[in-house]
């Protein structure tokens, strides 16, 4: 743990509360979460389905507003930002890898990967150059002009990883990145994430309940019923649910 505790904090949440719905059907998804992720580490948020992992992820990247508590990302507090500022902040600082990939089906791999740069105002040529070099880096350089539907799940997730990295954000957020993949592709994707995404000034947060990939984490934050239960080292932790 000493390798990470001295590094710069990437994400800090204090007492984050979030609930959905009203009255009888109200669900308390987060019941006061204190969470911290540091630059240079890959941290996994694990726990049974419905324990609030995705909600926590949504709150700490600013796509969902918490009811109470604070969220600080790279020293900037998200709750003080207006929604347009949040959007711009996300565009600059956060890369996303989704469970459902969320690649736009009518765009080629190259076009999908170039989007974060285009959104940041880069020219098409610059964006496509960078996208192409990242596609090579994630091992599907020959698929630049292929549509997502013609790629396997593993290949699509590689495109998504390239898209998450292309604008060089400092925080990479992955929600169940292996849930739609078979075991081998899942391991490959995590391997790739560690190799290409993890850098000393960057933090990778992976939400998963896939115990087969726990070993790739530097730290594991275990959640249960809307609370952070414990922090583990990957070797020490065995999931006690499933």
């Amino acid at each position: 743990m000493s390798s990470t505790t001295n590094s710069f904090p990437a994400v800090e949440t204090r007492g984050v509360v979030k609930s959905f719905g009203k009255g009888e059907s109200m669900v308390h998804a987060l019941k006061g979460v204190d969470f911290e992720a540091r630059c240079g580490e890959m941290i996994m948020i694990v726990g049974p389905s419905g324990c609030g992992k995705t909600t926590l992820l949504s709150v700490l990247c600013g796509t969902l507003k918490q009811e109470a508590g604070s969220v600080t990302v790279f020293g900037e507090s998200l709750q003080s930002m207006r929604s347009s500022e949040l959007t711009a902040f996300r565009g600059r600082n956060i890369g996303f890898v989704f469970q459902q990939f969320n690649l736009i089906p009518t765009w080629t791999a190259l076009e999908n990967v170039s989007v974060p740069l285009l959104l940041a105002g880069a020219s098409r040529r610059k964006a496509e150059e960078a996208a192409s070099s990242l596609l090579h880096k994630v091992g599907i350089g020959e698929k630049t002009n292929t549509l997502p539907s013609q790629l396997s799940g593993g290949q699509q997730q590689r495109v998504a990883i390239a898209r998450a990295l292309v604008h060089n954000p400092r925080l990479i957020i992955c929600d169940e990145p292996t849930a739609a993949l078979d075991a081998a592709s899942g391991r490959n994707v995590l391997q790739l994430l560690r190799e290409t995404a993890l850098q000393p000034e960057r933090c990778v947060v992976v939400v998963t309940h896939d115990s087969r990939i726990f070993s790739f984490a530097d730290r594991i934050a275990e959640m249960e019923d809307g609370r952070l239960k414990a922090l583990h080292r990957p070797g020490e932790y065995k999931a006690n649910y499933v």
Partner: protein
Amino acid sequence: MLRLALKMLYGDLAKYTMLVCGLSFCALLMTQQSSVFCGLLLWTTATVRNIRAPIWVADEKVEQVNEVVSLREIEVQRVRSIQGVKWAVPIFWSIQQARLPDGTFQGIQLTGLDSTSLVGQPSHMVAGTVEDLRLPNAVIVDQVAIEKFKKKGITLHLGSTFELNDKEARVVGICKTERSFLGQPYVYTTYSRALEYSPRQRKELSFILASPKDEFRASEVIAQINQLRGMRAFTEQDFAWRTIVWYFTNTGIPISFGIVVLLGVVVGIAIAGQTFYLFVHENLRFMAALKAMGAGMGTLTKMVFLQAFTVGFTGYGLGIGLASAFGTAVLKKGQPPFYMPWQILVFTGAVIVLICCLSAFVGLIKIARTEAAIVFK
């Protein structure tokens, strides 16, 4: 990003085709129906457009051209005596029955022209000359007469004859006329012979056609004529316009047809709006993903509007193209009525723009309301 927004649209050819079809159908329906409607209204003014004169004078009770209240022949003199009038001639117009050689009857619009001046003569002769009207028993028939007679197995040509109230009428010319709401062919003859062809009435004159002197404006002369008791004058545009308005206010035809047009517009809007809404709805997840990745509402707005207007203008172009093709085809046939003034194109365009804006707007509201968090689902 805008290039990619278009690619989002074109990329799925099946859906794009469906969208464009929805909007073209809407544009086609609106343009075609409105044009048929305008054509129908225009048909009511056919007599004013077939008999050309700057000023029409009628009995003061007359409200539109298809309604005749006879004047006395002396009234022509009264109009002529007005200072600003260059010339004034009588014209006879009435529906009569022509008896064909096979014994059947065909309604016609008998039009009697002043035999000296032939004012109100057909403007487009297909065969023969107008001057031949001065020959005995001479009539000029229009292309509608040829069609109607042909349906009964009778081929009309120069020299053919038929009977009008037991008197012989000989065809000396064939002309082309604007089709009329009443549907009967125009048969031209001279004023005096038209009276012979018709059952005797106390007063015979249908209208007086007049022209202002060069130094007078039509409106001045009309004001002078209106001073005369029992008479009322119009410019030809005014008379045509009043006729259209009269059909609007006095018959159910424009209203019931107008409802059909309106229905077409509503159906068109519903289809087009729905298809575009579906498109936005299907892309909601991807739009939310773009939002999560840092696309602001400004960017998304531009993208959605670009998509909406691309579909809109393509559909509009196709739709009015099809409507024009339809129009060209039916105009050759002469039926159904079809008249597409530029206002219809502007109207359809405006409705399409409205549909695009509205559905883009609804789509954007949906995008704005969607929490970017759905991308994690």
